[in-house]
């Protein structure tokens, strides 16, 4: 099967195809714009430093100013990034109760033991239980463009940031109206400031367990440095992107990361058919493609030399 007559031209063709794909991927990746703003606040000159020094206030608000030099093409995606954060840790990630989250009221009264130690608080069951839900990211962001000294709010779109199947099928609110009554005799998770039924009081389709931010958080990240989608900028004056100018990101700094040497970043990115900016795939294709071409030439030389040393 591995005759040289098949392998050598095959390698050559594959190599060329891979090089072509690699070039295409690299070009696409290079055209993606990314803007990352670290707002952990560890340096004294950082605007968010005041939120990290004791005494730590609640609802500390800090503002990050930045400028955009070229049009940031839309639709613009806004992510928050965390580093050194092991959502992939086994006990942490397994600490949740799927039955609660699919709206089964019997588990509101007796949460699964996986949720330990966030199973009961003050004798009452926690809903939603578990460490994964408990540690939900609770910084909020508002973006303003500064035009003539005036702040103009950039509208954020929070729909469709979680998987469609998570939102519509996997996670379900209990069948109760009003939703608040389903949570009688339960308590909210220890680290949360609002209960689950108050996550978005303005929109009933975004409240409770189907809250998009909650769903995004519950999808465990694979690696310790990760990014999660927060909002999209798609509407109004900004549907073509963020125009050149000065901007101010107002952050409600609630989430503590400094104790474990983590960092927090706000990231703007646009997205192509291949996703965000990732040069790895393009470079890998180029490398493997060129290796295939080189190998086919080497094999051809070896084959010619050792199979047909002299012609008659």
């Amino acid at each position, binding site marked *: 099967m591995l005759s040289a007559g098949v392998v050598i031209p095959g390698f050559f063709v594959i190599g060329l195809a891979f090089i072509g794909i690699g070039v295409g991927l690299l070009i696409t990746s290079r055209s993606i714009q990314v803007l990352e703003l670290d707002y952990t606040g560890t340096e004294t000159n950082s605007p968010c430093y005041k939120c990290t020094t004791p005494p730590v206030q609640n609802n500390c608000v800090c503002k990050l100013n930045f400028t955009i030099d070229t049009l940031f093409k839309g639709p613009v995606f806004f992510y928050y990034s965390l580093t050194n954060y092991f959502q992939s*840790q086994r006990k942490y990630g397994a600490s949740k109760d799927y039955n609660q989250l699919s709206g089964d009221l019997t588990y509101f009264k007796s949460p699964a033991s996986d949720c330990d130690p966030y199973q009961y608080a003050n004798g009452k069951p926690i809903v939603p239980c578990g460490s994964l839900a408990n540690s939900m990211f609770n910084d909020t962001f508002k973006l303003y463009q500064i035009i003539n000294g005036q702040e103009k709010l950039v509208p954020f779109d929070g729909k469709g940031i979680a*998987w469609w*199947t998570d939102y519509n099928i996997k996670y379900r609110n209990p069948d109760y109206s009003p939703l608040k009554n389903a949570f009688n005799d339960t308590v909210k998770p220890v680290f949360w400031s609002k209960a689950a039924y108050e996550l978005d009081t303005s929109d009933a389709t975004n409240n409770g367990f189907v809250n998009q931010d909650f769903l995004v958080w519950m999808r465990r990240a694979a690696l310790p440095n990760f990014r999660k989608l927060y909002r999209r900028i798609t509407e109004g004056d900004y549907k073509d992107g963020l125009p050149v100018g000065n901007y101010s990101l107002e952050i409600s700094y609630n989430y503590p990361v400094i104790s474990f040497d983590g960092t927090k970043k706000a990231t703007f990115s646009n997205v192509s058919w*291949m996703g965000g900016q990732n040069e790895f795939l393009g470079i890998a294709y180029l490398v*493997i493609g060129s290796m295939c071409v080189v*190998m086919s030439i080497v094999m051809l030389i070896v084959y010619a030399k050792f199979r047909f040393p002299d012609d008659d």
Partner: protein
Amino acid sequence: MAPLQKAQIVKMIKTSKEHPITLAIGDGANDVSMILEAHVGIGIMGKEGRQAVRNSDYAIPKFKHLKKMLLVHGHYYYIRISELVQYFFYKNVCFIFPQFLYQFFCGFSQQPLYDTAYLTLYNISFTSLPILVYSLMEQHINMDILKKDPSLYKDIAKNSLLRWPTFIYWTVLGVYDAIVMFFGAYFLFDNTTFTSNGQMFGNWTFGTLVFTVLVFTVTFKLVLDTHYWTWINHFVIWGSLVFFVLFSLLWGGIIWPFLNYQRMYYVFMQMLSSGPAWLSIILLITAGLLPDVVKKVIWRAMWPTITERIQDADKLYKGQLSEFTPLASLQAPPKAGGRRRGSENQRNPRRSAAFSKKLMFTRWQRRPDYCTFTPLLRLVDGHSPHHNAYGGAEPETCV
């Protein structure tokens, strides 16, 4: 000779300096001791009764059957079992090493990379049948060539396929494939999205991506190693891959009520809906198989074993090689000119013409059947026309 004396002779050979593997063959009751003493004991169903047969490892009706048993069946079994053993270690190294690597990225908390269904079914359903069929049916060289050229046995002498160098090669290949798979997926996931709607994937998608590349890579490795293709090989190999895909779609497509977690729900489909995921699967499979293919082709060209030369010649002449082809002409030492070696070069008719002067070709007639029953596996596929030319040369499991 007395039975004890025969056994003592065998013992003496066994304990000699080279510690060879010994075979004793006999048909009478006085041969029983030596049959038991030797590593492999063969009994002939003879006029003197069935004593020898009862105590032997293998029994044959006539002495002449020893030839085929050693040169064909013994050779096949060795090839098959050595590949089975090496391949099993290899595919499990590929399976577990990424899980090990993942521990560095999950706080060493024993978080599995793959879902439990994948962990359970990998060795049972996704990768078991292809190697099973290989180890039952592989014929690296045609039976008749093996019978007429005993020197082919030299290639496997002294347990050569199960020695340390070969095992280390397979293990290093497994580790390399595992590193390619894991870090390929790692850099793809590197802190960015690879969907066109900006959504992020989670840890189960990561594991599923690695697992998909894994199953396809190890199966294609077996495809590259298989010489003798029947419809059964095709069925189990492509069938295993199709089964993996269908199982994944089914497993993630339904909220299974007996599970108390739904972590795999829709994960496989989400992974497949991303263009870069497809591209990286293709890339990682190719990158994993590349070194082995290159090594095989270069080694075959530069340092071909007798077996490989016969395989090339057989393929070149597409079954025209017969019992009367002097194979000595095919076993030229490596440094000799290329013209005496069988090669796939059909671009150079002059060289083939020079070759054919030294060979005689006969069209093969149907050979008498040694089988006393029709073997179950007497199946010929369209991919090996040269076996058709031999008539009775389908895989025979009987003697």
